[in-house]
């Protein structure tokens, strides 16, 4: 049996928006089957992962808090991906953002005032940006693939984090635990809904996404990014520098990952700990694609992924699903999304040997 792919003249717009939903459904279906086959309660797993977080109001605040960093990072990544700049190292930039914020927090621990938190946030943004400078430099000067450099720098960032919390930044009153001291009240993100854990990072994520959507769809900067991604030669012809765009894309995505990092450090964590890297930077890659690289779509994709993350934690306790199962569900989601994308853009034709020609 032969089959081949034939490009569709114009991919259906409706399908482009429906496929992310389809990918989630296919993930649930296949996940249920696979986990049943290997001896878990497959249906239960799907229910706990995809439905419980939605149906249980107590979990809603978790969804908001988990989706915020995913959305912020994914928005940054999506801008780079639009330009064909493949920053895979958002996790490292996220860590550096957290570290920069923590550094400022430690320096200002004896001071007080409303200026401290904005300073930390600014520092976090710059920290994430700084971690993207090296991939940008290597890519534009020496044509080194940014996928490799940004990914490898992630591990450098994690080692740096471990060194700092074990060494110079260790809390002297912390009974030897590898962690910094707690941030002061002026160094923490305020909660915006009383008696919940929903902090200022949640509205910041929404503002970032809407602002990025506006930039990408209306501004010359967004246009430049899209032209460079779609046709570098046309970009040069149109007067846009490809290298400048690579710089802008990497610095923007680094800055936003850094922002997410400092918001996490100053929010849920409240200090720097070795468990600070929580794979938000990697999960956000899936979120960016699930949201069709569109900042508004990313808001929904971030929520969907937060459901899987929160649900995964639920499933670990309620039906003893292994922690790795959540990773499998997330990967399946990306797989089904990319696969259905192919089918939206191409159609499959079976049977190359044309029998009908003889008719």
């Amino acid at each position, binding site marked *: 049996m032969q089959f081949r792919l*034939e490009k*569709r*003249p*114009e991919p259906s717009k409706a399908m482009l928006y429906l496929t992310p939903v389809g990918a989630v459904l296919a993930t649930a279906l296949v996940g249920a089957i696979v986990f049943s086959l290997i001896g878990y309660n497959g249906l239960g797993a799907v229910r706990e992962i995809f439905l419980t977080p939605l149906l249980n109001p107590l979990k809603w605040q978790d969804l908001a808090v988990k989706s915020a960093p995913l959305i912020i990072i994914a928005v940054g990544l999506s801008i780079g991906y639009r330009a064909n700049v493949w920053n895979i190292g958002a996790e490292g930039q996220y860590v550096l953002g957290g570290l920069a914020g923590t550094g400022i927090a430690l320096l200002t621990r004896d001071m007080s005032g409303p200026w401290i938190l904005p300073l930390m946030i600014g520092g976090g943004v710059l920290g994430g940006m700084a971690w993207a400078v090296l991939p940008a430099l290597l890519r534009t000067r020496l044509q080194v693939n940014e996928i490799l450099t940004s990914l490898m720098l992630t591990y450098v960032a994690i080692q740096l984090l471990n060194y700092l919390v074990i060494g110079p930044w260790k809390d002297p009153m912390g009974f030897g635990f590898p962690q910094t001291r707690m941030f002061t009240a002026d160094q923490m993100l305020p909660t915006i809904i009383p008696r919940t854990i929903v902090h200022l990072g949640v509205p910041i994520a929404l503002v970032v996404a809407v602002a990025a959507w506006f930039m990408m769809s*209306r*501004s*010359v*900067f967004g*246009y430049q990014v*899209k*032209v460079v991604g*779609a*046709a570098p*030669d*046309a970009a*040069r*012809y*149109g*007067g846009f520098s490809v290298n400048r765009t690579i710089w802008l894309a990497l610095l923007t995505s680094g800055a936003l990952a850094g922002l997410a990092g400092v918001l996490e450090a100053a929010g849920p964590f409240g200090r720097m700990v070795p468990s600070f890297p929580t794979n938000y930077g990697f999960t956000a890659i899936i979120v960016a694609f699930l949201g069709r690289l569109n900042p508004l779509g990313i808001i929904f994709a971030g929520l969907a992924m937060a459901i899987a993350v929160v649900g995964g934690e639920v499933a670990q306790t309620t039906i003893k699903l292994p922690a790795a199962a959540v990773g499998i569900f997330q990967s399946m989601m990306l797989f089904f999304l990319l696969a259905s994308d192919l089918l939206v853009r191409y159609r499959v034709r079976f049977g*190359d*040997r*044309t029998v*009908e*020609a*003889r*008719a």
Partner: protein
Amino acid sequence: MENTRPNRLELIGITKQFPGVLANDNVSFAVKPGEIHALLGENGAGKSTLVKMIYGIMQPNAGEIRWNGETVVVPNPKAARKLGIGMVFQHFSLFEALTVLENIALGMDAKIPARELEARIRDVMRTYGLLLDPHRTVATLSVGERQRIEIVRALLLNPKLLIMDEPTSVLTPQEVEQLFTVLRQLASEGCSILYISHKLHEIKALCDTATILRGGKKVDTCDPRIETSRSMAEKMIGSGLKDIVKPEGRRFGDAKLVVDTLSTRKSGHFDVPVDRVSFTVRAGEILGIAGVAGNGQNALLDALSGEIHGDDRNAITIDGRGIGHLDTTERRKQGLCAVPEERNGHAAVGDFSLAENSVLTARDRLGMVMLGLINSGAAKTYTGKVIADFAVKALGPGSTAGSLSGGNLQKYIMGREILQKPSVLVVSQPTWGVDAGAAAAIHQALVDLAAAGSAIVVISQDLDELRALCDTLAVINMGRLSAARPVKDISIEEIGLLMGGVHGGEERDAVPA
């Protein structure tokens, strides 16, 4: 008897449907043994699709292919070669870094020891006068020589039918003559030739029969030696031809675009840079730059448009203002617009709408940007005007560029630049792959722009186009430009010699190496 011999190839009611287009509609014709049969039609008429089905690259949806009288199905090119069908494509599939021999060996279906293959190659070359050193690296060969590799590759299989797809579009007039000699010799030995072209004088000179396609349908099969070029062209286009209307006794204004010893750096390994190029174009003048593809035309266009820019501001001047150091955006603001050869991915972004593509080059000249934000309304309005004025077949400014046919996209691109009323316009291959009707419209628009006082540079490989369109003509060869001369004072033989690298002598030697 001749008549009782079956046709070498016969197509009966061939139909091919693509999503949204009927590429071939019930096409039937026959090719006799030893016949040189022209397949004539505009771009998009369905010629390429038809031969791809004969060569087994595609399958017809309906219809029958007969080979020597027997119905056959050609599932793939390998089967076609086995039947005795050879094909020389318009775009060569050669590895530049390998030798002639290695390239041919890679394309053979059967494994043949290198020494034996070389002997056979030399044999074919000797028989047909296709002179070529089998051990030369392809990168060092001219386009005409590369085509010879493809021909030799096809001839090694002793084909009974040779399909030539637009073979002369990249050749000098002398090379065309050599090619015709080879084809005539092959035909005299009984090999049929299916010759695809839209160049009417070539078909008149070479072919015994011509089948004319229009819009996927066969219009006529005729004898090109009896028909006139005009009558065949009208069948091909389906309506009366329009000639370029050039106002008589045109006078040129002051020098507008002056290029003074412009050079570019060699960027890629197989890239030809421009080398100390100088010329002047006056207001109202159209300068043509002829040359075989790959002689620095791309570098010249990029250097003029600003995609490559040097430090010497006075290497290029417009009305005396040095612009040699400016980038494309700044040059456009100074009145210089350019259209590169490659439409998709260079002059336009296929995935973008036409309105978005207008933003690419017209955003500053036509005020489509305010405070860093794009005024998409202005872009749509302008795009609508381009579509209307240049009769672009598109649903509207929202259509993606990639959904347009090549000719329509080119009309849009030319319209996008011309309606900006640039004081200098540089275009490469303005009508490459464009049907005759659209080409005439583009030519007229260029003439009208010149009449309004702009200076125009047309880089093209189509000598007929250059001679009809231009006032002065220069030839580029290996990055060097010959002196520009009035078109009426320069013969086609001279142009051919210049294209082949034979310069008048003094101006080339006068430059110290």
